[in-house]
């Protein structure tokens, strides 16, 4: 029996994995310093920024996708900028999808890392300072290694959450084969075409994959359950 997935399905799977990996990487690069700042700042901006980061937890994905579409489109601020730089508009492109996913999965990465930094507390960093470590040195040799469990949780949650995204993708990416058509959109296509068998294979794949990821995370005893988290 041959695999009941056609080339469009395989392309969607490949694109989804690429999107989730790239998004996770970008989120770790942006989210770690942001989480550090949120964990240590006494600035008045902490409240508003925290709320902004957590917004995707409660916002319908279509709302987020809509505003991103407007911002990235030819008349939006980001669209105008990218056009001036000669990059064209990012709406309906893979880059646009990455930007959307980064926004959408931000709280799933920032919050576990922020929690990890906060639970380390100030003391290990003060000890490192009195042992001659500069602030950057302390961050890399003490804070990051001690926050490792939180960073692993964040990466896995960010990856898994991006795998399952649908509304944001549809709004800003559309349904373009090999460019923006990810697994969740492809499942929707199959259902629209009444091809339930193909939809089952893909949907079942995502279901099992997500379950295994969460199971592994739970086994490590480090699953951070986020209040109010929803798809």
């Amino acid at each position, binding site marked *: 029996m041959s695999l009941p997935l056609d080339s469009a399905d395989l392309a969607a799977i490949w694109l989804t994995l690429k999107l989730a990996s790239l998004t996770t990487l970008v989120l770790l690069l942006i989210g770690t310093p942001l989480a550090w700042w949120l964990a240590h700042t006494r600035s008045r901006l902490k409240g508003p920024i925290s709320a902004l980061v957590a917004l995707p937890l409660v916002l319908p994905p279509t709302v987020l996708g809509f505003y991103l579409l407007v911002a990235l489109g030819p008349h939006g601020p980001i669209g105008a900028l990218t056009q001036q730089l000669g990059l064209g508009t990012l709406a309906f492109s893979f880059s646009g999808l990455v930007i959307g996913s980064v926004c959408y999965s931000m709280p799933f990465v920032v919050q576990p890392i922020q929690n990890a930094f906060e639970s380390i507390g100030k*003391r*290990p960093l*003060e*000890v*490192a*300072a*009195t*042992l*001659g*470590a*500069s*602030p950057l*040195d*302390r961050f890399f*040799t*003490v804070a990051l*290694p*001690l926050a*490792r469990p939180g960073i692993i949780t964040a990466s896995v949650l960010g990856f898994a959450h991006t795998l399952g995204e649908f509304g944001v993708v549809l709004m800003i990416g559309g349904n373009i084969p090999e460019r923006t058509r990810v697994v969740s959109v492809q499942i929707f296509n199959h259902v629209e075409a009444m091809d339930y068998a193909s939809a089952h294979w893909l949907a079942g794949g995502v279901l099992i994959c997500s379950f295994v990821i969460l199971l592994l995370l739970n086994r490590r005893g480090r699953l951070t359950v986020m209040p109010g988290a929803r798809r």
Partner: protein
Amino acid sequence: MIHIRLKQQLAAFTLDLDLTLPARGISAIVGPSGSGKTTLLRCIAGLERAEQAFIEVNGHCWQDSQRGLWLAPHKRALGYVFQEASLFDHLNVQANLNYGRHRSAEPASDQQATQIIELLGIAQLLQRSTSGLSGGERQRVGIARALLANPRLLLLDEPLTALDPQRKADILPYLERLHAELDMPLLYVSHSPDEVARLADHLVLLDNGTLRASGPLQTLLPRLDLPMAHSDDARSVLHGQVSACDDRYQLLELTLDGSPLQLRLPHSALPLGQRVRVAVQARDVSLALEKPQHSSVLNQLPAHIEAIEPGSHPAQALVRLALGDNVLLARLTRYSVDQLQLQPGLPVWVQIKAVALFD
């Protein structure tokens, strides 16, 4: 010398100090909770930035707000041992020890490192993970880690408070050995009169952010105007050296500094000439006008009264006595003081019932 001038507004009071401490030995910082002891250490370390401060340690200036000079903590050659050992749990013991040593401009030499590890008794722990260590072991590793960076000043903030009495008793001898063998100055915040009597050379008494008194331990402990003399376990510390050992009765004879007077106490033999300090509780001292005959008390020494003050309880009186160069504190009943007509200047015989020896 260590010079510290600090002015820092805190929530409850203002920390306002002008302090000069000896360049070596242990200076104990004591005072009621919330009198600013920990804040003082944190300001010295640069973990807190005092608004107005001048901090100079043996010729190296770390902060001078008049010149706008402020060194970040990682640029100050100091060691800081916190109440809980705060080892890095992602590193094993050896890597913890290396953390400060590798970052120090003048780290301990290999020979010094071996000596420090030996001194603190942690040689067998080097390859262990920190999670398997007992509280006392963690604290010893924490102290060694600070020392291996070869700091110019070691700050200890109640390093034994988090330990149970047994672990405390285990670690005190290590601190005494450090004291005897290291050249660097130590500032030691403590709540325990026992630790202070055993370890400190110099005493700093804080009260509500201000300096109540600062001076050599043996002169401050018996000062009747300070709270230590009025506490229930008030004691005086005497210095002397071993002048004889009696094997038959297992007694040690000490000659007190600045006098021909000798103290005897039950103790196993020590090398002749070794310098020791002993502590005598005020409640273990009694007075007589003539040399007591037929007494079981080992130590009967001539002294004269320097001062008499009411004690903390209305029935009690505190008597300060000169014993050669040493000062001794006695706690008597006010009734006895009146009966014997004790007064300053009067020669008396002191009987000392118990002596604790710290070698």
